[in-house]
């Protein structure tokens, strides 16, 4: 059924349809309407889920670690400072190999206080062992949550589904909401390998000496390496059932373009219209949407950029001292390759400033006109 819903409502539908057993969350703008929606649904009896209304994000994730260890399907949502506060527990969730799914609504981290869209929150958690999937629109938000549980439970790693503050979280769009039956046949109940059973007592997350610790980390890396294949199968299956699929990346616009523009999140939607217009005007440019940030889709990207001479990246995030994080990861992934197009790293839209079609046009124009970037960080729309 098609409904006109916000990104945060799409999250709530994703949670309902995934038959989540335990939700634990703490309010933070712009995530709050997710927990409000879920509270309403649970209070009205439409959703049979235990909701732990904890006293902090740290406890929200800790409670899910307990619940997931207990063998049930879990969900939480947060943003910004809340995600940063969870940091320790994010490592714990992946280290304990728990398939928790969390939504992070991208928001800048203060100071100065700022509640608007900025990817620095989720990207500063990139080394915590979580799979990270970025969404472009509300339909993708809902669909990605359904896919996330299947991926998480197969590889035994947690998944962070990421959407932009306000641009998606509080903006209504038409979304096809699948039926419970359709989702049930796609997403089977969670069957953990080692659920808690007092008849067969086990010790979980036991202290481990240097002679064994590294092997546990190796196994996490191996699980991450399975993600491209597993998520492709999940996405293919999803596409065959629901007629929609996303891939780890998506290339659009002119084939065999010399200039490629790489974006993530809602900036991709704006870029689509800019690139369509430029293609009509005869410019050889194409777009590259990055959905999966962890594990970084190096192979997929390399396959999609063959022939391109220049890659422009727009990062709505900043790792101070380095620049945009997507650009940094892209450079690292290209280094061992034979064909290494010039990477133009643009930083723009921090703290929710609009990344307008004009700014995107400027980035493309700069990339077309320059054989190589004049600076390692190209600030787009900065008031100097």
């Amino acid at each position, binding site marked *: 059924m098609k409904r006109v819903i916000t990104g945060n409502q799409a999250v709530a539908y994703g949670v309902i349809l995934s038959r989540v*057993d*335990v939700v*634990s969350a703490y309010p933070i703008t712009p995530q709050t309407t997710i927990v409000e929606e879920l509270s309403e649904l649970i209070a009205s009896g439409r959703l049979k889920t*235990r909701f*732990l*209304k*904890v*006293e*902090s994000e*740290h*406890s*929200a994730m*800790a*409670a*899910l*670690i*307990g*619940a*997931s*260890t*207990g*063998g*049930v399907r*879990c969900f939480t949502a947060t943003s910004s400072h809340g995600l940063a506060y969870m940091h*320790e*527990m994010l490592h*714990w969730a992946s280290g304990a190999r728990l398939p928790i799914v969390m939504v992070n609504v991208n928001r800048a981290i203060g100071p100065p206080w700022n509640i608007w869209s900025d990817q620095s929150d989720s990207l500063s958690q990139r080394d915590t062992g979580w799979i990270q999937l970025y969404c472009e629109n509300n339909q993708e938000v809902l669909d990605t949550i359904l896919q996330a549980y299947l991926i998480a439970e197969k590889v035994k790693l947690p998944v962070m589904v990421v959407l932009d503050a306000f641009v998606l979280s509080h903006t209504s769009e038409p979304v096809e909401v699948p039926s419970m039956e359709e989702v049930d046949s796609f997403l089977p109940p969670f069957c953990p390998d080692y659920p*808690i*059973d*007092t008849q067969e*007592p*086990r*010790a*979980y*997350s*036991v*202290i*481990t*000496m240097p002679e*064994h610790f590294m092997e546990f980390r190796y196994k996490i890396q191996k699980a991450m390496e399975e993600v491209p294949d597993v998520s492709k199968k999940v996405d293919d299956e999803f596409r065959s059932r629901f007629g929609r699929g996303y891939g780890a990346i998506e290339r659009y616009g002119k084939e065999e373009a010399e200039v490629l523009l790489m974006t993530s999140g809602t900036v991709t939607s704006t870029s689509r219209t800019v690139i369509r217009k430029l293609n009509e005007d005869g410019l050889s440019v194409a777009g590259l949407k990055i959905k999966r940030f962890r594990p970084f889709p190096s192979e997929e990207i390399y396959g999609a950029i063959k022939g391109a001479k220049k890659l422009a990246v727009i990062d709505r995030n900043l790792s101070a001292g380095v620049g945009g994080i997507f650009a940094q990861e892209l450079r690292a992934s290209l280094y061992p390759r034979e064909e290494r197009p010039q990477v133009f790293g643009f930083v723009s839209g921090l703290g929710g400033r609009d990344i307008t079609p004009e700014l995107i046009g400027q980035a493309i124009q700069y990339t077309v006109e320059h054989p190589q970037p004049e600076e390692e960080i190209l600030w787009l729309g900065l008031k100097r």
Partner: protein
Amino acid sequence: MNKIKVPITENLGHGHLACAGCGAAISMRLTLKALGEKTIMVFPASCWSIVPGFWPYSSYRITAVHAGFVTGAATASGVRAALDVRGDDETLVAVWAGDGGTFDIGLQALSGAAERNENLLYICNDNEGYMNTGTQRSSATPLLAWTTTTPVMQPKENPKKDIMAIMADHHIPYAATATIAYPEDLIRKLEKAKGIRGTRFIHLFSPCPPGWKMASEQSVKISRLAVRSRIFPLYEIENGRDYTIQEEQRVVPVREYLKLQGRFSHLTEKDIEITQANVDDTWERLLRRARC
């Protein structure tokens, strides 16, 4: 005190790594006897992350869930929620946290769980300091005590935090103090706690020979003197309101308790008087709360 049958089953196995004379090892042994096999115990960081041994071994014969330092009560809330969803309301979910994990870093999560009246049994194994990291002060360290972060030139300036009053004021159904010198009282309280729904809190006093600079054979004796000197009175609080004090008639001056421990060996006569006054005052406060 009435005699109580102590279960024969041992749920703390051989080969654990506790120090000689560890009061908490006796506490744990008795606790696991009282709680039985149908128990899941959550362990935020403390000596008890190490004591059962290293992977792939564990001397716990019950289900043990090791957890982040801050998270004892939060992780346990999640385990409880999972069991509830699975339709298991028989299995007991317990937390075993140190005083650091309870009085200090874990207090927010504990307060949250207690306010929600989560159905779990929280045991604070209090050895009055960060003993696993080598005896640093916590807010459970007593007034004027030596620790590695309160050296004798500047011993602890503040009295111990009143964790029982804090827990009682969350109006939880049951809170009790207990110690190994009174094992029947300890087991009775654990069994009573086990039969109650909601958040239950046991404040367990466990001497630490290396941290307290005391002889390893005196853990039980020092526990008993802690009760007799009213350093650590035994009592129960039901619903944050109804107090029952297991009053020890053989009261001794606090000096008797202090003199057996190197952590107090720097105390002057004046310091001992100050300590005695503090203990008397805390006892009066307890009696006042119990009368209200």
